[in-house]
């Protein structure tokens, strides 16, 4: 598929909106994507590959379940003692020459980062991929302040140059294929004769970014882990752009959600084993870096950590939902999800898509937005099965559905909503065997006009039409099971 004039790419789901405040509800957002065969093929291809690689490595790791148990336990221990670990991290980071800032919300985080960059007189800043910075919508704020953010991850570069949005936590451009990448690079890097093989494309990115790495004096990163014991930060990556950003500039700003902390350095022996296998199906990703504050003569001499709350402390308070914060952003759940497979990430209207997005985003929004996300799941449980920190995502989804329902049912508009009405009526029917039996008979009568000669229903009105859009429904038989049983009992000697 070629891009139309003006630079639109075939895989773009007509300007994806990854802002939960403005995004369409999931069922509507998904519709145009479901018609995008190219995108769905790309997503299926990518997730199949990562899943197969992951499965092979998990099979070979005889202590995989023990690692999951340890990882979940370590993360729970962190969450239970989060205040202590964060203070310990802060003390040690400062002692090592770093600065620690605390941001209550996205707005404050952006302000802190902007202030730090203004102190640098920075007109440009190089960035390592960090979903957290997308969560706080940092790039538009930087641009508005006259600071140009340069994404250095190949995927993020593809998205930035293509005016697109990430659709996966670990492989953000998985919805884009090589031909589309070639088109973007050729146009934006001025390389009309660029080949479309991944080798050539990668070489183009390497040349394009090298100049930036060696000249831009400030960098922004996220963090995979913060180590409380030492005040260290760890980042896991594949391309080397992370190492470039962490080592070459004068100033480094690391943005990290408060839940990213681990107690001790040695806890990485668990986390690193599960992260790479879950995220990219490798025993270890090419580069893992760890640094502590400022080290004289080695790397940035000005180092700032911005700790971000932005709704996390509210999640922490809730007994069932707290496990959401164990997440280490491996995206194994996205790769395993049969819903995500059909829609990719853009349909979730958030930088966090797939199963983790369905529980994290609504909670970060305090359930004021993204209320459709907990319903964007068939509750199949594949995510829970692969989650390296054992987050019982279906359990949290159901809990959030209950909370969303409690909020919605109080609204006047819901009184005659067919779904709400139907649920209340069904509950009444289920409360008494007599009513249930009656409803069965009435149901059969009501469906009779829609039932064809072959005994099947081809089309139904109202909510029923959503069933019959793609499926027939077998008509109700004359005799229900309980009727049959009752007749049989009477016939017994």
């Amino acid at each position, binding site marked *: 598929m070629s891009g139309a004039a003006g630079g639109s790419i075939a895989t773009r789901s007509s300007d994806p909106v990854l802002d939960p405040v403005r995004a369409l509800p999931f069922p509507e957002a998904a519709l145009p994507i479901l018609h995008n065969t190219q995108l769905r093929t790309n997503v299926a291809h990518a997730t199949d590959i990562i899943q197969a690689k992951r499965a092979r490595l998990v099979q070979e790791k005889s202590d995989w379940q023990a690692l999951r148990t340890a990882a979940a336990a370590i993360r729970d221990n962190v969450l239970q003692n989060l205040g202590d670990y964060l203070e310990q991290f802060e003390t040690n980071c400062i002692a090592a020459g770093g600065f620690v800032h605390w941001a209550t919300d996205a707005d404050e985080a952006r302000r802190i980062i902007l202030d730090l960059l203004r102190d640098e007189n920075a007109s440009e800043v190089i960035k390592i991929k960090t979903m957290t910075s997308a969560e706080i919508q940092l790039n538009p704020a930087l641009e508005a302040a006259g600071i140009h953010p340069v994404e250095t991850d190949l995927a993020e570069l593809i998205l930035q140059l293509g005016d697109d949005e990430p659709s996966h936590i670990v492989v953000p451009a998985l919805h884009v294929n090589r031909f589309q990448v070639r088109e973007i690079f050729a146009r934006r890097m001025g390389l009309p004769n660029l080949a479309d093989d991944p080798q050539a494309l990668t070489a183009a990115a390497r040349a394009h970014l090298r100049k930036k790495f060696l000249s831009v004096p400030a960098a922004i990163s996220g963090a995979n882990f913060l180590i409380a014991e030492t005040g260290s930060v760890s980042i896991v990556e594949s391309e080397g752009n992370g190492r470039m950003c962490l080592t070459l500039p004068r100033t480094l700003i690391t943005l990290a959600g408060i839940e990213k902390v681990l107690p001790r350095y040695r806890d990485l022996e668990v986390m690193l084993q599960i992260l790479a296998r879950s995220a990219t199906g490798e025993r270890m990703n090419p580069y893992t870096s760890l640094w502590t504050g400022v080290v004289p003569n080695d790397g940035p001499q000005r180092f700032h950590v911005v700790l971000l709350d932005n709704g996390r402390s509210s999640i922490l308070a809730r007994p069932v939902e707290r496990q959401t914060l164990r997440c280490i952003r491996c995206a194994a759940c996205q790769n395993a999800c049969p819903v995500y497979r059909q829609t990719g990430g853009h349909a979730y209207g958030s930088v966090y898509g797939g199963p983790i997005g369905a529980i994290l985003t609504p909670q970060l929004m305090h359930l004021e937005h993204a209320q459709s996300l907990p319903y964007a799941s068939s509750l199949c449980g594949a995510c829970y099965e692969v989650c390296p920190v054992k987050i019982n995502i279906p359990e949290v989804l159901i809990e959030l559905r209950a909370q969303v329902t409690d909020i919605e049912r109080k609204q006047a508009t819901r009184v005659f909503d067919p779904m709400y009405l139907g649920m209340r009526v069904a509950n009444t029917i289920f409360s008494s065997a007599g009513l249930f039996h009656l409803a069965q008979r009435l149901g059969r009568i009501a469906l009779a006009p829609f039932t064809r000669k072959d005994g099947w229903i081809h089309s139904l009105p109202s909510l029923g039409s959503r069933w019959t859009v793609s499926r027939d429904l077998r008509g*109700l038989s004359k005799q229900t099971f*309980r009727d*049959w049983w009752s007749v049989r009992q009477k016939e017994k000697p």
Partner: protein
Amino acid sequence: MRASLFIACYNDTLFPETGRAVVHLLERLGVNLDFNPGQTCCGQMHANTGFRAEAFSQAKRFVRLYQNAETVVIPSSSCVAMIRDQYPGLFAELGNDSLRNEFTALFPRVYELSEFLIDKLAVEDVGAYFPHRVTYHASCHGLRALHLGDRPFRLLSKVRGLELVPLANLDRCCGFGGTFSIKNAAVSSAMLETKLHDVLSTRAEFCAALDNSCLMHLGGALHRRSNPMRTIHLAQILACTGSTPAEAFA
């Protein structure tokens, strides 16, 4: 062996032939089966859609109905998953001590059908005869919530005349998901399409499962396409013997 049958609201209404098959099968195996006509629904639909108070009232009803049952057999993995996975939380949050005790006492006595046959009756060969090409779809609740494992396969392997064709991507969800099929009809249909591709590739005559919920979804699409493949609950296969025509249950 005595057992109480909880047929599940949707089987009762939409798939009575599955219920009849369960009765014939278990009675043939010497089970003294009873059916309490007071039963309605386990509450799963309401729980999964977010109507927790309503789900609890149905859960309470279920527990009271079966407090004296020796064993409860349910030909629906999703209902058993509801009872095992969600009832504890519901009773902890909304119940009182007496209800919680009743539930705790009932908990170990609830079985999904294939569990009942393999674990409780300790039979794999139920004397069935079903000379057809069959593929088996592992519904998500059975697979991941109940960890049924190879139970259905062990039962199918002893059915005389049956040719079992493996289903590719066996553990991928068919897309039904209860009210998900309505609230997210488009995505549900896309998932159905993907699943159907694998099911049809088996060229089986029948697609079997332990849950009519999945089969209603798959079967509805097969019929929409005028495809000759039919869906069938495992109970109906197991109930067929040499002396009973397969057509009576299909």
